């Protein structure tokens, strides 16, 4: 069995902010990291490796520095790592990204067919959750999103059965391989690399594939292949800014003043009194 895992290098988004006055990004000392959802996917792939002896290939697209997430994957136990790096890939939106990744998975398949593609539900920088479904669609893979458990894989009948999160509960569903699973964080906790594996990962060769290597059309990758463009960025709007009172200056006055302000809207006050019933 051959499992491909797509891993994105993302900035640690908790630290990215916009200065509201100058409208510039504040990114002092921001670290890049592997998208946590993708690391969960990798952990699941490694479990499949432990269980079924699957071969695990880690795949990432990005500038040459993105090799650090692939090294991390190797240190945890991935067998192979491929970095898709080409200036032509720059500026890709989800459509161009899913195209590029699917071409790479096709290329991987030439050596050994890929049975399972695992990816995180979404990346924490963009939160779009579109790349996985896009890859599945392009490669004609059975698509399972929001996976929280891989219940079984039968290599003989070539079927996979998963539990996925849906509105109001969970769904157990099975389908044929090859399949794509996009996973939730609950699925697994990524393992910590052993020291020898960690050391080896720094020396391991990382394949770098450009557009030509994956036989991708230059019109469909990167900015050229991206229908959506960013027009502008801004800080999220904050509004209202009503009055506030300090409880230290008198607890009961503060509470009653705040309540008076809140219920100064008569309709709102009436609705509250009626227990919100229309």
């Amino acid at each position, binding site marked *: 069995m051959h499992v491909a895992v797509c891993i994105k290098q993302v900035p640690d988004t908790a630290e990215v902010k916009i200065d509201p006055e100058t409208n510039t990004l504040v990114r002092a000392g921001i670290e890049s990291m592997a998208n946590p959802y993708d690391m969960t996917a990798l952990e699941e792939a490694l479990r499949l490796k432990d269980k079924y002896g699957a071969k695990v290939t880690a795949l990432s697209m990005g500038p040459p520095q993105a090799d650090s997430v692939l090294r991390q994957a190797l240190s945890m136990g991935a067998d192979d790592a491929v970095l898709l790096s080409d200036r032509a890939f720059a500026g890709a939106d989800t459509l161009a990204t899913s195209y590029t990744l699917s071409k790479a998975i096709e290329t991987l398949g030439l050596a050994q067919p890929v049975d399972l593609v695992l990816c995180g539900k979404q990346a924490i920088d963009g939160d779009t959750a579109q790349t996985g479904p896009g890859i599945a669609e392009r490669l004609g893979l059975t698509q399972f999103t929001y996976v929280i458990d891989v219940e079984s894989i039968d290599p003989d009948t070539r079927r996979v059965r998963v539990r996925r999160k849906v509105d109001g509960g969970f769904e157990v569903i099975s389908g044929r391989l090859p399949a794509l699973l996009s996973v939730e964080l609950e699925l697994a906790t990524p393992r*910590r690399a052993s*020291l020898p594996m960690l*050391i080896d990962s720094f020396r391991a060769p990382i394949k770098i594939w450009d557009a030509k290597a994956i036989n991708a059309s230059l019109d469909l990758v990167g900015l050229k292949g991206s229908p959506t463009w960013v027009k502008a960025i801004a800080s999220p709007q904050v509004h209202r800014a009503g009055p506030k009172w300090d409880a230290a200056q008198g607890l009961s006055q503060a509470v009653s003043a705040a309540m008076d302000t809140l219920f100064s809207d008569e309709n709102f006050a009436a609705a509250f009194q009626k227990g919100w019933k229309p």
Partner: protein
Amino acid sequence: MEEKFDVAIVGAGPAGISAACVLADRGAKVIVVERGEYPGSKNMFGGVLYGQSLGRVIPDYAQKSCPIERNIVESRISYLSEEGSIGFAYRDQAFFGKLHNNAFTVGRAKFDRWFAEQARAKGALVVCSTVVTDLLRDGAGRVIGVKTDRADGELHAKVVLLADGINSPLAVKSGFRPEARPESVALAVKELIELPEEVIDERFGVSAGNGVTIEILGSVTLGMNGVAFVYTNRRSISLGIGANLCDFAKQRVRPYEMIERLKLHPAISPLIKGGKPREYLAHWLPEGGWESVPKLFHDGLLIAGDSAMLFNALHREGSNLAMTSGRLAAETILHALEKGDFTSRTLKGYAARMEESFVLKDLKKYRRFPSFLKTHGELFTTLPRGALEALREILTVDDTPKETRRKSAWRAIRGRLTPLGLLRLLFDAWRSIR
């Protein structure tokens, strides 16, 4: 683990990485183990590095896009009382020209990562998020490697270099260094205040990548033995204040209150006006000086940087001592590798090199300085007040004859300090740096 390294370095700070660069450059098999998520993530210092000590490790650092914030062209010293300041500023054209980057500011998160990248490029392995939990020893007690918190985490090396900073629990645990006593440690806090580049340029009278450092003494430490500083970065100002840990405990002052107070001081607030606080950091400094430096070499082990308490409290230098000690440790190890002997017999060459270098020479020269500060609390209390009043007397222009003014100026000092006390202060000061 089967693999054996020539050198295992604990800590990817200036000392550890300097050593790694020198060693890897000469083909030694080096591994650096860092507990932080990335080099620099757990580190903090005032912000000034020195070009010469870096150049000895990476001669072409400027061409390798070393993340320099500002080249320091002017050094100021400010002596603050509650109400005012007495200052001294030194600016020299030489720092624009031939002494360019004699001293410069950097941000640790950026610089340490860059520095570690240089070591990696030379062939050193730098592994992060890995904590060294213990030293490995053979039957004879010689250090033969380290143990980490990862699975299969033993790492064998011919020599271990401890460069894990002042909090080095490893040095303490292995008995190579006593736990730092509170009186030989300072607690420093620092705030990064963001301002536009042009505003900083204008306020400090500099342009294009040049900057200023201000060392501050006086009443801002609220009578505690300590100093404050203002350093210019490209688009921010580092504002810090530190004092002896003992004094903090005694005075029950909270460090962040001190920094808030400093920000309000009339001599400081105009410099940071309109800036936005971005980061707040705290760190220990080894201030014990010469007396607190432990034995630097053992069988299979060397100690460098803050782990070895190398810090020049008078000149506020630390990073250059760390880098130089790391480099000298590396040179010693290279010699040991040549000889194939890793016992203290060969490794003691490190101590000799250190004694030959400015590092220990300076520390030895100023060995009485820490106790001088400790015993002269008036430096941080009455003296700044007196000095300011005396100057106020002298510089107020009215009908009073100068003779009377001179006398009252003298009274302003003497009222706070007996002539004998003043004499002792001057004598002790002279003796401490003689």
